[in-house]
């Protein structure tokens, strides 16, 4: 007993050391850098003064807040009715709609942006077609395109959270209101809606966070419309080698926003959640044909519009291309052949980095989950916060912080593949910890004790009894880690160097230079690599992975 107590303490210290060097210290480092005058090296508020003085910077902040707010409102407008229709009414193909409806969450947003550029960009398919018949369509560039992509990719978050809340309402709750004399609308506005409001708020906060931290979409489609994450990246590139004071200041401002969103979500909204054990779920109603059709049209239509871009990219990948000009209708495998034969390195890099980070993340996740659930102590609270902290840090900010911190000095990691693995596993481990620790929580500690009592030492008892029961959660967590790492752009773009470019970097750069054909080929490989494990897991465990995000 005493001995295992010591062993756990050593592990705890090691975990804290990793979290300190990978998360806390880099953030503190750029926090400090943001208060340093890059020329003199002295303490200075110059970066923040610059930010407040030049309308250019303030506009970035305003732009970020604007697109995030607008996209959040639109995702609510789509997600809430979507959830309500799906959970309350009989609709043909409901399960398919539900499954496909969650896919946009996992598919990379910048690929969505690419598709809209292929369709509505300057040389886009629709743009040309409309020009042919002399119809001017609004430009996709700037805030409109950003909001379009955000709305279509993030509304499933609102849908998932609200439908979970709707399904947790016991039938008797609405029946009680009806019994007390409330009409249908009154029941909805006085009982149903207030009960799901915390879920709506949660969904809104998550969407707002995802919008404001997103890097790929605004950088590809925003053009002159600059947002904070993009500007922080630009400043970092232009300050490369020097002290990242302006990039630091912008990162700190972005961090302040994302952190307060997370804190607000965790400590205020989550506490408002009503916990109900639904014994009798509300019966699914069958409507008359016309309303059923309208509802179906809305839901299926939204899913179609959200997934359409990815189909476009996949079709583009097998279309003959010449630079930005695509010959739709003429099929060719050139893009794939080129991707696989001439430049296969990004594909190998992506798989290698994602797999390495996932393997480390699995072990890290199991150990941290065990510490959090079974070895609760004075520092568990701190551990919980530190380990979940990366979820509240924008990818760009984390990338900048790591790159700046380990650029020179004691440990030099910038410019190696290891810094990518470090960033990936520290950013994605929370997903694994969430799935494994919630499973561990359901496993009664006496199961482990029973094994020990039957003569198996503690560590072996854990491996033989607890691990097999936790396996579904570990696999689910690992798959989420793997697919989200594969699709990661905002941290990678800051941290990668030449030979370690990943598929996402390759796609990003090819889109930037208008090279849509090869970009689509890589994107298609990426989409398929993400969908296959999810599909398999869905078949095997029937688990909706998107819900664990």
């Amino acid at each position, binding site marked *: 007993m005493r001995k295992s107590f010591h062993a756990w303490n050593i592990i705890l210290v090691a975990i804290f050391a990793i979290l300190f060097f990978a998360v806390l210290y880099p953030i503190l480092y750029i926090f400090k850098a943001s208060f340093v005058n890059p020329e003199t090296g002295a303490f200075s508020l110059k970066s923040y003064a610059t930010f407040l003085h030049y309308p250019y910077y303030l506009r970035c902040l305003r732009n970020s807040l604007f697109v995030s707010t607008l996209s959040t409102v639109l995702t609510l407008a789509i997600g809430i009715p979507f959830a309500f229709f799906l959970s309350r009414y009989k609709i043909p193909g409901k399960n398919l709609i539900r499954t496909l409806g969650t896919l946009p969450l996992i598919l990379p947003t910048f690929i969505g942006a690419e598709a809209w550029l292929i369709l509505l960009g300057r040389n886009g398919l629709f743009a040309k077609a409309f020009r042919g018949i002399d119809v001017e369509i609004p430009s996709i560039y700037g805030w409109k395109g950003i909001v379009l992509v955000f709305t279509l990719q993030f509304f499933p978050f609102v849908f998932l959270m609200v439908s979970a809340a709707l399904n947790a309402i016991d039938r008797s709750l609405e029946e009680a209101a009806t019994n007390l004399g409330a009409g249908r609308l009154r029941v909805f506005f006085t009982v149903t809606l207030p009960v799901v409001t915390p879920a709506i708020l949660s969904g809104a906060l998550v969407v707002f966070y995802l919008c404001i931290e997103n890097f790929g979409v605004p950088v590809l489609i925003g053009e002159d419309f600059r947002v904070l994450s993009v500007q922080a990246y630009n400043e970092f590139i232009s300050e490369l080698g020097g002290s990242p004071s302006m990039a630091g200041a912008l990162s700190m401002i972005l961090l302040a926003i994302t952190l307060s969103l997370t804190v607000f979500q965790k400590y205020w909204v989550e506490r408002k959640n009503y916990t109900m054990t639904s014994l009798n779920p509300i019966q699914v109603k069958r409507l008359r044909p016309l309303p059923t059709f309208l509802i179906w049209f809305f839901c299926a239509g939204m899913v179609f519009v959200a997934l359409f871009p990815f189909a476009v990219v996949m079709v583009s990948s097998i279309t003959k291309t010449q630079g930005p000009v695509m010959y739709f209708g003429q099929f060719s495998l050139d893009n794939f052949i080129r991707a696989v034969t001439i430049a296969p390195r990004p594909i190998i890099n992506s798989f290698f980095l994602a797999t390495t980070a996932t393997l480390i993340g699995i072990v890290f996740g199991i150990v941290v989950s065990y510490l959090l659930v079974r070895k609760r102590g004075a520092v568990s609270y701190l551990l919980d916060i530190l380990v979940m902290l990366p979820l509240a840090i924008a990818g760009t900010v984390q990338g900048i912080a790591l790159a700046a911190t380990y650029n020179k000095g004691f440990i030099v990691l910038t410019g190696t593949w290891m810094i990518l693995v470090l960033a990936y596993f520290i950013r994605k481990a929370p997903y694994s910890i969430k799935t494994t620790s919630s499973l561990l929580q359901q496993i009664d500690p*006496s*199961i482990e*004790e*029973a094994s*020990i009592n039957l*003569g198996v*030492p*503690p560590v072996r008892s854990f491996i033989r009894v607890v691990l097999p029961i936790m396996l579904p959660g570990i696999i689910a967590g690992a798959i989420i880690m793997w697919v989200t790492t594969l699709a990661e752009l905002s941290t990678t773009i800051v941290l990668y160097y030449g030979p370690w470019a990943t598929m996402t970097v390759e796609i990003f750069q090819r889109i930037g230079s208008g090279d849509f054909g090869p970009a689509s080929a890589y994107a298609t490989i990426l989409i398929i690599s993400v969908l296959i494990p999810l599909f398999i897991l869905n078949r095997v465990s029937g688990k909706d992975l998107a819900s664990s995000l």
Partner: protein
Amino acid sequence: MRVELTNITKLFGPLRAVDDVSLTIEEGDFFTLLGPSGCGKTTLLRTIAGFYNPDAGEIRFGERLINHIPAHRRETGMVFQNYALFPHLCVFDNIAYGLRARKIPKPEIAERVGRIIKIVQLEGLEHRAPSKLSGGQQQRVALARALVISPQILLMDEPLSNLDAKLRVSMREEIRRIQKELGITTIYVTHDQEEAMAVSDRIAILNRGRLEQIGAPTEIYYRPESRFSAEFMGSSNIIEMEVTGWDEDHSRIAAKTAGQTFSLRGDKPSGARIMISVRPEWIRAVAGRRDGEDNILSGTVLSSTFLGSMIRYRVSGPGGKPIVIEVHDPEEENIRKNGEILWYQLPPDRSLVIRG
């Protein structure tokens, strides 16, 4: 295997969960730790199993001091309150788990598991998953899994608390039968006094981490040493009295309270006041005061519950404190209504005096 605890103390922060407990459990005994929730009984059991380290005191199995033996080498079989069956293993694999950990050869495992499955009457369910078993069957698997390793000591932590009332009664008889059949030293934890009386050779009553009394069920029922023991095992009327004299020749105490005098059996009282404990069924309803008979009182019936074979009265006792009286097989014409006067007699020849 004999189990000996000496001055065991277990602290949780400032809380003394187990406070200086010493007791000896004889080879083959069915020994029960009985007490309300939070009394330290489970903590004590888990300390014996090795899941807690005592902060003070010694634990001996036979002659061997086992304080520093880790839990997985103590050779105890434990049945957990929620059974703790391994959900990913079938009945057979659950039971065989401990044997495999001991590297027992395969044929012997099959033979021993088969034998124990017969004893706990689980034939035919070998390949079921635990989730496909009823509560009673899960209980049997848990018991079989603990017994199959031929442990020196069987530990049971409220094993019946998750079963319904009827099953609880039949399972406890079953557990008792198997325990006697195998002759295994058993330590059993429960908060249910009826269950404790039904299964135990000896019982230890625990209260707030401290030992109140150890003894056979009859001993504790007839001669509770403390007010807590008296009230926890069965129900009891507790009356405080003032000592007025002691008759050394007949070992009798003279006492009084609220103007009533009493004559009680007992040793020389240590102080000026004593406390007595009288079970409701020990009190007799009588016709009235008679010469030469001690301890006859009267009181007004406050309420009564008629249960057919028995009637239970609440009667105003000495000093106004209500007294509960149970009259078995009451004559219909003798049943008193609320507000009527009932004469009753406290048993003069039983030992009623308890420690405070």
